[in-house]
């Protein structure tokens, strides 16, 4: 059981403040670090993994400072976002090299165990360079897990994964969290965090915007009205059908199509295809108008 503790942590690069006076405690279980691109998530992870000194404040794991302390890495598993690995090596060779660098007693069996955890045993003799992005992600996971660290830090681990790989990684992280590991992963996609993280830390523009139970924060996020722009084969009929269905609050005609406002995001996106099909209308384009994370998080911060 390990605890990551950030106390009054700021980090600036020249005149740019990337992280501004953040204090957070991350305990065992799975925690999501959520925020729009450029919010400072990678900077925070960089400081937690000892690759970046805080400009002020302290970052500790179990009370020990991480910066300039390579011995901490026996307790930390790091999954960087960067794709580059030693591409000419096979998955097994690379994980084995990592196991040896950790000076494990039995690197070979640790390697096979890690590859099994990420379900790469079958592909272990293939060169990493030939792997898809999702498979590379799993190799990275295996290298991070091979020494059975207490703390696992993952930077945008779901990027580039297909739904099946995503489900698999979700299950793996959940299992690690239940087993008492301290798992922290960053994401800029709300839905990714939903199924897995019990607690989330939301950062916006370098500041901590929200912290705590996912569900209550999620409710705040989903209750806000959502805007969509649609275009279809028959905009007027579709407008009437949407309004009579009751899944949206307001519909207005525009020169190119429709603008729809829905307060229940889940209900509307599920209802729309059905409404269109029942009215025999072809949907050409459905665009969330204000789904940029910045607007979601700005809304959250305003609350």
């Amino acid at each position: 059981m390990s605890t990551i503790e950030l106390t009054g942590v700021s980090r600036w690069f020249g005149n740019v403040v990337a992280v501004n006076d953040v204090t957070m405690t991350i305990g065992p279980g799975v925690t999501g670090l959520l925020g729009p691109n450029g919010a400072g998530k990678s900077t925070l992870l960089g400081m937690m993994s000892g690759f970046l000194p805080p400009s002020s404040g302290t970052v500790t794991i179990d009370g020990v400072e991480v910066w300039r302390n390579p011995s901490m890495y026996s307790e930390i598993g790091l999954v960087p976002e960067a794709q580059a690995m030693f591409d000419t090596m096979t998955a097994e060779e690379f994980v084995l090299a990592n196991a040896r660098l950790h000076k494990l007693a039995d690197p070979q069996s640790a390697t096979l165990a890690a590859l099994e955890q990420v379900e790469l045993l079958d592909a272990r003799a293939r060169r990493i360079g030939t792997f898809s992005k999702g498979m590379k992600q799993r190799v990275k996971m295996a290298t991070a897990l091979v020494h059975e660290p207490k703390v696992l830090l993952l930077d945008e681990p779901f990027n580039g994964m297909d739904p099946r790989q995503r489900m698999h990684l979700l299950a793996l992280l959940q299992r690690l969290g239940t087993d008492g590991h301290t798992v922290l992963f960053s994401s800029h996609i709300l839905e990714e965090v939903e199924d897995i993280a019990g607690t989330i830390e939301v950062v916006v523009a370098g500041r901590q915007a929200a912290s705590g139970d996912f569900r209550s924060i999620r409710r705040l996020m989903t209750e806000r009205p959502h805007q969509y722009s649609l275009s279809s084969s028959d905009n007027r009929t579709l407008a009437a059908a949407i309004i009579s269905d009751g899944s949206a609050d307001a519909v207005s005609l525009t020169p190119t199509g429709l603008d729809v406002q829905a307060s229940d995001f889940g209900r509307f996106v599920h209802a729309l295809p059905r409404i269109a099909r029942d009215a025999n209308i072809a949907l050409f384009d459905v665009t969330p108008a204000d789904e940029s994370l910045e607007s979601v998080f700005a809304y959250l911060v305003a609350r």
Partner: protein
Amino acid sequence: MNTVIMRLALRALLGSRRVWILVGLSGLLFAVAGLSRWGSGGAVDVSTSVIVNFGFGLLVPIMCLLVGTGVIAPEIEDGSIVYLLAKPIPRRTIVLSKLVVAIAVAVTFCVASIVIASAIAGDQDGQLALSMAVATALASVAYVAVFFMIAVLTRNSIIVGLLYALLWEGVLAGYVPGVRAVSIRQWALAPAERIVEGNAAIPIASEVGLVAGIILLAAATVGSIIVSIQRLKVLSVRVSD
């Protein structure tokens, strides 16, 4: 020293395009040596000039630049260095392990190239090959250490290294008297000068004495290693793209 890091470094180095550039540079040296022999009939004073100025003065620093930066710069550039740094291994061990590999490769490659080129161009009882092999081996160690340091200090290591090798060591050290005494090239030539002392046919001259040359080479090497280790301790690595 860590054998895993050494194996990884060797593999990365020999698996990269840099090896083929090294082979190409050697081939170029052999071709020039061959032309020199054909043009001069193997006159040893001419081949000395070719080996010292072109081989040793120009190609050896470039080869060492490729090798010295090659064991670390690509990993820093693409971020894969995190897999080495995120391990409970002192940074000193990482630097020394990589340097040993780079030095071994550079010394082997450069010395072999110089020795073979000397034989092609024309030698006198192996005196040219012997003296320049010693100079090349010593220079390679110092060059690799310096270029490795440049690679951990700047992302533009090839450009900075080339500027140093060509401008400082190549051009300025050829004309400016003060600069000449402050170059790895001149320091490494000191023992070569001693070996061929009294042999007028092989005119090798250094700006510095033997003891000074050796001490300065050692100082440059050790100083570069210390700076590299200190720098790697505080290297901020991108964990994201």
